[in-house]
């Protein structure tokens, strides 16, 4: 990046703008950066074109995020996050594999590429266990299996889906986290904080999109180390890390490359968009 005193040009690439994108846009402007909003659904992206000093990738669609980042990188633009980070985070098999490789705790996980192998894999699990596909979010197709009849119908339903990825299973030990998981947000090298996402009654999954209530979680050294390491593994500049807590251990479960932070803001009072804007400014000036 050049260190000139000229205006910093930031591109925010999106498809469906959420509160998060609007807040980031507003904070960037507050720091006198020029913001260009690019709706990837109607604006073509030319390979090799340099559109801005820095491009923030904020599409809801994971594949559009990976492609938008890759195209911007082809023009030499610094991207947050970069395409590799978004790819690694977007596919839970890739994320968990990387995380396991560096020695962080994950819930015991087995990948099964189809119905037959999923049936075989299931035999190594004490019930209940979690079954989910490698892609997707907000708890879609994530099931807690405690009943052989439910398991059979899950296997059959997933076989019928046309997407190759949605026919792949990740089977995981169910970590009984008192119906809550932990979400932390990392910007640059800073862990901004962490929250509990407490699931609503009758719902074992703790995604905010499913109505979970966010609550402040106190940071401790072990938690912080796991969060920083998980963000490092995917080379994330602005990511969220989801962890489960059980038997006095933290298990890293997911890293998100286009993090949502509405619930986190509500529970912590931390202005995530402002932290992102400050980070963008400092990166461009490097």
């Amino acid at each position, binding site marked *: 990046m050049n260190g000139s005193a000229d205006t910093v040009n930031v591109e925010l690439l999106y498809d469906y703008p959420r509160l998060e994108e609007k807040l980031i846009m507003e904070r960037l402007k507050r720091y006198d950066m020029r913001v260009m909003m690019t709706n990837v659904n109607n604006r073509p992206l030319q390979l090799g074109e340099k559109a801005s000093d820095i491009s923030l990738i904020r599409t809801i669609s994971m594949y559009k995020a990976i492609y938008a980042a890759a195209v911007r990188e082809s023009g030499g633009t610094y991207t947050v996050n970069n395409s590799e980070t978004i790819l690694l985070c977007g596919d839970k098999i890739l994320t968990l594999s990387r995380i396991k490789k560096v020695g962080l705790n994950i819930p015991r996980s087995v990948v099964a590429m189809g119905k037959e192998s999923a049936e075989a894999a299931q035999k190594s699990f004490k019930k209940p266990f979690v079954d989910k596909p490698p892609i*997707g979010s907000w708890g879609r197709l994530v099931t807690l299996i405690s009943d052989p009849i439910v398991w059979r119908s899950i296997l059959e339903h997933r076989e019928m889906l046309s997407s190759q990825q949605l026919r792949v299973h990740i089977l995981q030990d169910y970590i009984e986290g008192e119906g809550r998981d932990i979400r932390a947000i990392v910007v640059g090298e800073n862990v901004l904080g962490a929250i509990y996402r407490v699931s609503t009654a009758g719902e074992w999954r703790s995604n905010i999109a499913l109505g979970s209530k966010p609550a402040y979680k106190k940071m401790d050294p072990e938690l912080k180390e796991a969060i920083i390491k998980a963000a490092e593994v995917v080379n994330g500049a602005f990511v969220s890390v989801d962890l489960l807590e059980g038997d006095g251990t933290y298990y890293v479960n997911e890293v998100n*490359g286009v993090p949502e932070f509405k619930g986190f803001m509500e529970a912590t009072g931390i202005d995530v968009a402002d932290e992102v804007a400050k980070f963008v400014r400092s990166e461009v000036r490097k």
Partner: protein
Amino acid sequence: MVKLICPLCSSTVEIPDDALDGELFEHDACGAQVEVYVEEGKKKLRLAEGISEDWGE
């Protein structure tokens, strides 16, 4: 607020002035998920596509 026509129930939907191209709203009156788009500089509404398998964070 801008008054636009709901593509599902054809009644009026109020959309904030600063709504962005691509922004999604739910029309309380009929429950439709609508998407703002811009045509010839004017904001319009169309029915939003459903959630795709790769949507999320």
